[in-house]
């Protein structure tokens, strides 16, 4: 051979890789959320857009500020900060002041992810940690629900949205209760069709059950989520409320009401399935899902709060390392054991 030999690389097999990458999987979740996000903006007007923008900005700023990588901003490219901000925004009441949403996003990423060591190392779902922080610090603002205008007042912005930091502006909009609140405190049941198609009050992302389900199907088709988690959560909730309605149909919610009300679909499909904070083993995923479902129902029915998805998921997040440890798969050619 006259030519010089090429300098050969010595990368070890396997050289072949499948096409999915972690940033692609994260972006898929964002795409899956887009229809529900668009619907919430339509329902609650430009305020919703501003609120989502604020929580995403807070999350992105924290990621950028505390990035310890070689190049600042490098870790933003995996899209997880945007996803955290978006998910947090979707759990917030539409009339929440923007600065609070911004703070929530900032706290969610910094305390929920960065201090643990960044992507892949956190114990709790960052978006839900941010929400728990807001719930603890601003309990009134976090439980004030403006009325869903169903697209009617698209261009108007709630005055509370633009409130300056640490200044309480009076609530000027008409407020109302969420379906879960109405059930818990007024024993009033919302029609199912309203729940499914968003003719209800509540946080941004919980108003469009059907669109959330469609996004979940997209993620399942793309193999981006562990189907066991949403399936086990929803089945548990359905079973739990079916039993309760048998006991007293007037007092307790029907199974379908339980599924489509509150943040259950958003939590079960998009938050409990966060791979980092949910078990990695298949059996663990079932246990995790059943645990979330049971806690959601316990908090909703017997607790002091109308909604319990956030605390249910955070509690099960804490149990995840333990679940993983005791649910190792049975190795080929071996009996059941766990290290």
């Amino acid at each position: 051979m006259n030519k010089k030999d090429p300098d050969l690389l010595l990368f070890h097999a396997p050289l072949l890789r499948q096409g999915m990458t972690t940033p692609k999987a994260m972006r898929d979740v964002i795409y899956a959320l887009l229809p529900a996000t668009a619907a919430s903006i339509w329902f609650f007007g430009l305020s919703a857009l501003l609120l989502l923008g604020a929580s995403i900005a807070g999350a992105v700023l924290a990621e950028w500020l505390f990035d310890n990588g070689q190049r600042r901003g490098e870790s933003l490219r995996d899209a997880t900060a945007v996803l955290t901000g978006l998910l947090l925004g979707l759990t917030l009441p539409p009339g929440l002041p923007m600065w609070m949403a911004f703070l929530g996003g900032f706290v969610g990423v910094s305390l929920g992810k960065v201090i643990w060591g960044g992507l892949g190392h956190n114990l709790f779902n960052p978006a839900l940690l941010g929400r728990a922080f807001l719930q603890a610090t601003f309990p009134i603002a976090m439980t004030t629900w403006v009325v869903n205008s169903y697209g009617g007042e698209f261009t108007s912005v709630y005055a509370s949205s633009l409130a300056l930091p640490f200044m309480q502006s009076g609530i000027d909009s008409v407020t109302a209760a969420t379906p879960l609140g109405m059930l818990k405190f007024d024993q009033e049941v919302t029609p199912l069709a309203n729940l499914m198609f968003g003719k209800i009050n509540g946080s941004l992302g919980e108003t469009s059950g059907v669109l959330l389900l469609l996004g979940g199907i997209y993620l399942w088709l793309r193999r981006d989520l562990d189907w066991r988690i949403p399936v086990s959560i929803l089945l548990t909730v359905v079973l739990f409320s079916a039993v309760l309605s048998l006991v007293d149909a007037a007092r307790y919610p029907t199974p379908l009401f339980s599924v489509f009300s509150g943040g259950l679909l958003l939590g079960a499909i998009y938050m409990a399935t966060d791979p980092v904070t949910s078990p990695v083993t298949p059996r663990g995923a079932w246990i995790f899902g059943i645990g979330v479902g049971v806690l959601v129902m316990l908090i909703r029915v017997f607790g002091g709060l109308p909604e319990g998805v956030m605390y249910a998921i955070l509690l099960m997040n804490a149990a995840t390392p333990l679940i993983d440890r005791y649910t190792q798969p049975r190795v080929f050619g071996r009996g059941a054991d766990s290290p």
Partner: protein
Amino acid sequence: MKPLSLLRHSFEHGVHPAHHKAQTEDLPIQRVPFVKDYVMPLGQHIGVPSRAVVVAGERVRRGQIIAEPGGFVSTALHSPVTGTIREVGNFRGADGRFAPAIAIEADPFATQQVDAGAAQDWESLSLEKFIEAVQMAGIVGLGGAAFPSHVKLSVPDGVRIRHLLVNGAECEPYLTNDHRLMVERPDALLDGAEIVRQKLGAEETIIGVESNKPDAIEIIRRHIQPGQPVRVVPLKVKYPQGAEKMMIKSVFGKEVPAGQLPRDVEVNVNNVGTIVAIADYFLRGLPLIERVLTVAGPGVTYPANLVVPLGTPVREVVRFCGGLKGESREIIMGGPMMGRPIASLDVPVLKGCSGVLVFTEAETARRKEYPCISCGRCLEACPYFLNPSRLARLSRARMYDAMKAYHVFDCVECGCCTFACPSSIPIVQLIRTAKDDLTHRKEPEE
């Protein structure tokens, strides 16, 4: 056992890499011409290296023994050409290390006629003599592992083999050498299988072939003699279908217990190439001096299936195929999932070399690595149901001892986990590092 997985003849988990076989699957096996220089490493099989029985300057004939077994788990080596021993010394091997080898210079005027015995009366050989003959024929597993075949065929007293399983899965992408062998030499394959089956006293021969090779399945079926206890079983196309324990699971629905061998479930597994080599030795007197391999990959000018004399430098094999394209970046010996990269074109073709694959920038570009997000794709890929995610984390933390509790030594390094990882974590490579450390580490003395 799920009835569904039995119907489809498959194991659970595994991955589906693109086949990339269209490039070569219809190309008939060609013979490469003899070249000038050959190098035969003494350790080209698993086990003890062979012991050279020739010295520099000695003339050897093609097929003549040049090294004898160095122990029980070792085989003989034969000269791939008629020529002169140039040197018995150390040469750089495929892994970059210097290792003992015999260099042979071919005689350009020799006829290269194989000068070995003729067909053998294998039927009258005792089992002991038969196994010794396989060892002296230099036959090893030609699927890639190069484990001495006579060791596999030596069944301890009291163990019964009921099924001879012939492995024609060829689940590695790009490779088509076994496929071509099945299509072109079905009679040799069936004859070899019959010899082994009778010697083992097995009831039945089962030839497992992935269903993406319908022509091979059809041709073998057509050549089965009436009354011959042979079945061809089409298997689901899935990697690693050709891993012997997976194939046993696919065909029989049985799991070989961890730490045990196929014979513990009354099965003996051999690659189609090995079976043909056994037929060639007992029916034609041809020891293992050449093998079929696939030259493919985007960096090769003319991909091909070739019969290559052992010891031929990869450089000559690639030259026969029109040389490397300019953008070639890496050469793999074997398949892309489990093969080994070579550092130099001067590395010789060995007994275990089922392919020479040339990859370009597109396949070798480094993908950015992300932290493990515990997505579980590796758990769903691992055919052994290990937890590669946990193993990789422990290996990164150098907690090698803790990995034993997660059965790190059950890993066969098929690479499914690394293939499946969206964060591009070199999982199987990390596991290999740990296994190597656990195997070779010397504890500091107190």
